[in-house]
């Protein structure tokens, strides 16, 4: 029998040579080399455009030129957006100070201001999705016959393309086809044409989102539930804890970190809502922050303002992420 070094003539092939060289470089260099594909992809598609957009956001608008950017404008766009003076059909933020309680007044209705409508949407939707998702996760975490199919049924809305989700709810609330408007009008919640009213449209978008995304929350929370050591429940039962007490003292604290991570992802998503709005009520009715970017881009060719809105959106999301990270640090086993 020969010793094995004589037998690896194969490794001399051309492809192997750079790989062989990689074998003996330091961990530092090796790490950077392997990051090249990710860096290229993210560099071209994310970092480069973002820097570009940042630069655009500092320019003025010039809607009539083929490349609609004007002179350098500093933070002018940002100032206009925050003061409610942007040249857009809807404002990002439009509040003034007033002399009497509550000392602020709305320049335009609450639901017509991008920041408020998006925040309201994010908070309400994430709240309901968390509660419903928790309930769903609890159900599909149990052992029972047919659990596999119940699980599929509960998760499946998550896999639904936005355009189809939007269409289902658009049709349901369409006054001629759907039945939901009649129902809502009968109980006095909706006006004549809900898809043309800010308040009713907001509600429709909310319901559509909760329906679909609770499933995503359920999925992530289920993952958290399944990581709970089952023997803890035996311990709890031996000491006489009721199911509610088991939930309160065992399940909830252990799932909390996973729950917060799930909520973080969902909040980031909800703050960027666009497709669902665009395909149901439209951006005029529910001007979310991303809607504002698109309106400025396509409607009025105010690309510089659009860029500024995009960056403001990222900043708002960044602030929310920081809030969550503080929350996560507080809960045990948080993200490092």
């Amino acid at each position, binding site marked *: 029998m020969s010793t094995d070094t004589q037998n690896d003539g194969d490794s001399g092939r051309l492809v192997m040579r750079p790989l062989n060289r990689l074998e003996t470089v330091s961990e530092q260099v090796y790490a950077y080399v*392997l990051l090249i*594909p990710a860096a290229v992809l993210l560099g071209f598609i994310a970092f480069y455009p*973002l820097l570009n957009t940042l630069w655009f956001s500092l320019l003025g608008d010039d809607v009539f030129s083929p490349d609609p950017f004007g002179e350098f404008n500093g933070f002018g766009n940002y100032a206009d957006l925050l003061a409610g003076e942007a040249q857009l059909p809807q404002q990002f933020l439009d509040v003034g100070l007033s002399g009497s309680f509550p000392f602020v007044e709305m320049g335009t209705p609450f639901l017509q201001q991008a920041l408020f409508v998006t925040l309201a949407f994010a908070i309400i939707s994430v709240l309901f999705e968390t509660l419903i998702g928790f309930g769903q996760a609890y159900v599909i975490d149990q052992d029972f016959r047919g659990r596999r199919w119940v699980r599929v049924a509960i998760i499946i809305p998550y896999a639904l393309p936005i355009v189809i989700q939007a269409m289902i709810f658009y049709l349901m609330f369409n006054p001629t086809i759907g039945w939901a408007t009649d129902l809502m009008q009968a109980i006095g919640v909706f006006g004549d044409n809900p898809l043309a009213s800010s308040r009713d449209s907001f509600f429709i978008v909310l319901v559509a989102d909760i329906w679909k995304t609770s499933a995503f929350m359920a999925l992530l929370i*289920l993952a958290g539930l399944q990581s709970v050591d089952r023997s803890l429940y035996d311990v709890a039962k031996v000491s006489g804890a009721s199911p509610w007490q088991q939930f309160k003292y065992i399940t909830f604290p252990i799932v909390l970190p996973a729950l917060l991570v799930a909520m973080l992802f969902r909040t980031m998503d909800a703050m960027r809502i666009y497709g669902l709005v665009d395909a149901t009520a439209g951006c005029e009715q529910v001007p979310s922050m991303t809607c504002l970017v698109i309106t400025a881009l396509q409607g009025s060719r105010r690309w510089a303002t659009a860029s500024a809105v995009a960056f403001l*959106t990222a900043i708002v999301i960044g602030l929310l992420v920081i809030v969550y990270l503080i929350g996560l640090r507080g809960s045990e086993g948080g993200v490092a």
Partner: protein
Amino acid sequence: MSADDEHPDLAAMEQAQEPDLDRGPVEAWAAKMISNPDRAYRAMFYTATVFFLVTTLFPFYWLFMVAITPGRELSEVGALTPGGFDPTSFITIFTRLPFHRYVFNSFLIATVATVIVLFVASLAGYVFGRLRFRGRNPLLLLVLVTSFFPPAAFFVPLNRLFNTQVAVLEPIMSEGTLYNTPYAIFIPVSAIFLPLSIFILMTFYSQIPDGLEDAARIEGTTRIGALFRVIVPLSAPGVATAGVLTFITVYNEYFFSSLMTDGRPENWAPMLEGILAFQGQYEVDFHLMAAASIVAVLPVAILVIVAQEKIVSGLTAGAVKE
């Protein structure tokens, strides 16, 4: 509950403990429930299960009712009943428009994007999960920050980039630009959905013992070989999770899908454009849109049915726990 079955002794102890629970001011009803709490909880559980099943499945059922209603009788659709019966919508969608081509486009774009994401994220996840090097945390943060931005923040520069004529591309692309090609969709969505997969795979790869990687290298693989021959196969649930999530997200993606082509199927317009194409200029064929939606949802629905157990176990073992 299964715990009872596995540990009859524990269940017996539980019974013995129960009288203790009656302490304090408890109403008669509650007392009754407590005396037989299992039954009360079981009833609650079945109620909840039925409620969730109805609420999640009803919209699909209703969409089907719309799809089998003839176009003229759409206003007759009830909450539970169709306005008529005409299943030919499911054929019309393929004859009036090549809807299958749209679905194929989406399927192809999602598949390619998934492959790219899994490959790139595997390398990056390996680096972030297993190697010690300077600059790890800042780089990881940079990756995370990209997901703060709305897709729209990338759009203007990308739109210009993809509409720029690049001489090298001319032999391959008709006009030397990326607009109206599948690249214009899967390149940006790959990049935008990359961070999530990096995070999932990072957690999985970091849990594989060092000894296995060392053993593979001693036995004859390169370092990269050890990654793809040992670490990746051993992280199968994580890779499956990242892959399925990426596929679903890309297939469902709205923003770039609606903006990066002119909407014609031969120009790689995705499924989304196909559904919207049934919105004619004068009339909207909602029943066709509904039928098309049902067809378009099938690939992802099948994926969920097949892969749901993997996804759940994948997320359990990694991603969220970190």
